[in-house]
């Protein structure tokens, strides 16, 4: 289990290869990579800054992964979330989950993303031609998280 908040880029291939390496029972790894879009709500995005609540972030992510581990068979998981300045096309987040069967891997990975989106203390500020703006939370993210109750 690996949970990291960092400014630097990460290597998706390395992270997925490292997950559950040598565990003979792992049958599949589901993952999600979130990217900075160059367009958002119709406007051009030149870049963004990700702020977080350092004392809480790790705890919140650990709690989300623990909830997933209580609901599905997880053999290993990694969550990496970047903070600081990011350019369009750069990776923001990686969630990867190794399990025995793919159903559990997919469900746990999507659950972690949905909860991260609504419960982990990160905030995005976008740079646009019209100036800076804080990204607003999407109602669809709340709905996605509610599905799992």
């Amino acid at each position, binding site marked *: 289990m690996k949970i990291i908040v960092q400014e630097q880029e990460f290597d998706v291939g390395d992270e997925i290869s490292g997950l559950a390496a040598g565990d003979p029972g792992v049958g599949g790894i589901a993952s999600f990579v979130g990217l900075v879009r160059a367009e958002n709500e119709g406007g051009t995005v030149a870049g963004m800054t990700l*702020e977080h609540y350092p004392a809480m972030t790790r705890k*919140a992510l650990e709690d989300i992964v623990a909830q997933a581990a209580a609901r599905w068979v997880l053999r290993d998981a990694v969550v990496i979330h970047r903070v600081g300045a990011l350019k369009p096309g750069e990776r923001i*987040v990686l969630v990867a989950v190794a399990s025995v069967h793919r159903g559990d891997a997919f469900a746990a990975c999507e659950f972690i993303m949905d909860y991260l989106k609504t419960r*982990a203390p*990160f*905030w995005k500020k976008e740079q646009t031609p019209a100036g800076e703006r*804080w990204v*607003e*939370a999407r109602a669809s993210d709340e709905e996605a998280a509610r599905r799992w109750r």
Partner: protein
Amino acid sequence: MKVKLLYFAALRERFGTAEETLELPGEQSRVAALIDVLRGRGGPWTEFFATDYPYRVAVNQQLAGLVSPLSDGDEVAIFPPVTGG
């Protein structure tokens, strides 16, 4: 009792501060009482807490609600709905 207050993102900018210490009456309190104190302060606090903006509260780094208890020394963070991922 005293609590440490933290503001993040748009709320940090709106209140013009990231952190402050706040004195609350009594030895125990609740998030709702803290919000009442802030709403009564005037300026951007009164303005903000009069709206129905769906701010979030964490007590000691755990998401909390208006009825959540507060004790001396607690860290209370107030922030916008999160937008990571």
